[in-house]
């Protein structure tokens, strides 16, 4: 498995291979082709950051630009999914969920249950999330905890190019609605990715580092910061389990609890705002199901309860840092 590609290329390759494999897979979103109806060239953008570039040349009208009409096309993707298509709709920034959320949580997420089990809605909604792009308050949020809250929706947060490809192919083949959330700061991250199609099952955490002293659960981009801290502390003889749940719904509770039972110490790293977050969710999990194993108070490292700021100095202070994670690990060891 020598070949390395970026996180962004892994998204493109997964879409490309699934579109080639299954004619019911279609891709839609704002400027996912680019230049529709304009005097210049088609495939002008391939998405705002070029993630879907080149798919139009291979798959033609099965990748389609939409007007800026999130309710319209997210709803259309959901409706087409109930008819047996496998649409992948790109909601450019997850922050735009505010203008189409009903179609996701009240429609797609509930059809199966409301209709007595008889509907399947195999739609994938891809979106970028996360801070660090100097994109300010309406283009930087995480919001995955919001979707994790909804029954009927699955939520995927890949942290590596390998996971992107396997989890996106799984998302497309999965028969439930999936929110596939990509951290925009990871798009250039390179990693080894098999050229062949493969899937990674949902609900299986990745054990990124293995150690016995502290459990660090990280989400999305935070996995890398947690691993960096684990590597640094390993040199001091402090060994950490670093767990990347990969999907927040379903959540691999078993792996997290097993690790906590072993270490007795938990740090959760979540780039979201802290209230009703994955950090608080994992802390609740530990407190209710592994309380007797805990040797220290659980520590959470999150963004503060403020919108994402614009200025570099403020945004850098907003995003959980390696230093904060290290301090939290040291604190649970005291």
């Amino acid at each position, binding site marked *: *498995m*020598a*070949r*390395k590609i970026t996180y962004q290329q892994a998204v493109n390759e997964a879409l490309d291979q699934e579109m080639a494999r299954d004619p019911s897979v279609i891709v839609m979103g704002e400027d996912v082709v680019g230049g529709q109806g304009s005097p210049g060239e088609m495939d002008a953008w391939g998405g705002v950051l070029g993630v879907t570039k080149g798919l139009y040349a291979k798959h033609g009208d099965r990748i389609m630009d939409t007007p800026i009409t999130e309710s319209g096309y997210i709803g259309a993707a959901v409706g087409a999914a109930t008819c047996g298509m496998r649409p992948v709709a790109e909601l450019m920034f997850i922050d735009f969920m505010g203008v189409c959320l009903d179609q996701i949580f009240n429609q797609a997420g509930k059809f199966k249950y409301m209709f007595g089990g008889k509907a399947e809605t195999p739609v994938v909604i891809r979106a970028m999330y996360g801070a660090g792009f100097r994109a300010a308050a309406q283009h930087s949020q995480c919001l995955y905890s919001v979707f994790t809250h909804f029954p009927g929706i699955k939520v995927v947060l890949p942290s590596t190019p*390998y996971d992107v490809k*396997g989890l996106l192919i799984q998302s497309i083949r999965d028969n439930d609605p999936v929110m596939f959330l990509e951290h925009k700061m990871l798009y250039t991250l390179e990693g080894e990715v*098999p050229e*062949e*199609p*493969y*899937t*990674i*099952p949902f609900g*299986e955490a*990745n*054990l990124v580092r*293995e150690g016995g002293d502290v459990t660090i659960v990280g989400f999305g981009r935070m996995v890398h910061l947690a691993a960096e801290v684990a590597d640094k502390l*390993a*040199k001091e*003889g402090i*060994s950490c389990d670093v767990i990347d749940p990969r999907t927040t719904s379903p959540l691999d509770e*078993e792996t997290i609890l097993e690790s906590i039972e072993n270490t007795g110490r938990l740090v959760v790293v979540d780039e979201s705002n802290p209230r009703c977050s994955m950090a608080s969710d994992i802390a609740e999990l530990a407190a209710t199901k592994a309380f007797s194993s805990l040797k220290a108070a659980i520590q959470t490292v999150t963004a503060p309860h403020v919108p994402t700021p614009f200025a570099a100095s403020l945004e850098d202070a907003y995003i959980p840092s390696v230093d904060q994670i290290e301090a939290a690990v040291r604190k649970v060891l005291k």
Partner: protein
Amino acid sequence: MSDSIRGITMPKWGLSMKEGKLLEWSVNEGDEISKGDEIADVETEKIASAVEAPASGKLRKIVTENDTVYPVGALLGVIADDSVSDDEVNAYVEKFLAEFVPPEDDDEEEVSASEFIDINGLNIRYVSKGEGDDTILLIHGFGGDLDNWLFNHDDLVARTGKKVIALDLPGHGQSSKSVGDGSQDFLADTVIAFMKAVGVDKAHLVGHSMGGAVALNIASKQADMVNSLSLICSAGLGKEINLEYLDGFISSDSRKQIKPFLQQLFADVDLVTRQLINNMLQYKRLDGVTAALQQIKDGFIEGASQKKQFNDVLGSVSKASVIWGAKDQIIPASHKDNISGGNVEVLSVADAGHMVQMEAAKEVNEAIANTVA
């Protein structure tokens, strides 16, 4: 600087190894060690194993910290006899560290080392090392790939001076996942076609597990293409096989499910690291792999037994060795007793399981080298 100073460096196991984590030393500074002794535990992306002493002498200095990652070629320790002063040892270390350049993170190396060839419409991956007219062909077992020869491939080149080729069988590793009718003959015919395609008319076949049965089948079909046979925990020499393992391996789709099965492959279960499990899952999750494995299993198994035995073929080969890990839980080591006649060396390795070529690489490599000599 004395010639009797020898550096111990981070070994390179297999193509993709760039660095290894030194877990701990099993000897102390001042201990006398002999060439080949296992002196330190190292974990890589693929597997955990032991560093062997490159020379005999006193371990004068350890320059590493435990649980720390070092690049391939990095200095781990120094062996020298007492005639060498501490200052000379220290000077050696300083010079080494000053001059050492870690290997570049060069992905091209593996890409170029790994070759692909079209065999009857299948893309077959192989790695060829060493030069020479004489060829050794390494055939891995069920669910394996050419990385199973991590500790054998380079060493066999060094020991024998022959060309050593390892391939990924259809359905395995990076080869095509299509396995024809999944029969034993399909696999053997594919390997025969592969040998012809890469210009090998005749080879010393080394087969592990199912790969042993493939080698035996080739010998039965095309005796003229086989110089010798080295069979490691081989299928095809008896009826019994651990069906639970086969079915469990095929159906497992998660870390937790597959771990106990992978542990059955080794005498030392600690060798089944997180990374080894992940690598196995990465392979198993490729499209088509589960179906391919099931098809191959169906081709090899009838009821609860191996379909074909090739004991008579073994007797007719000019030279052969049968190597078994005594603690093999997949194919009973007692199958080595089913051999009669012929020129067959039998080796049983006490503290090793089914993956004996990894767990006791040195003994296995020696035995293979003797067989192909």
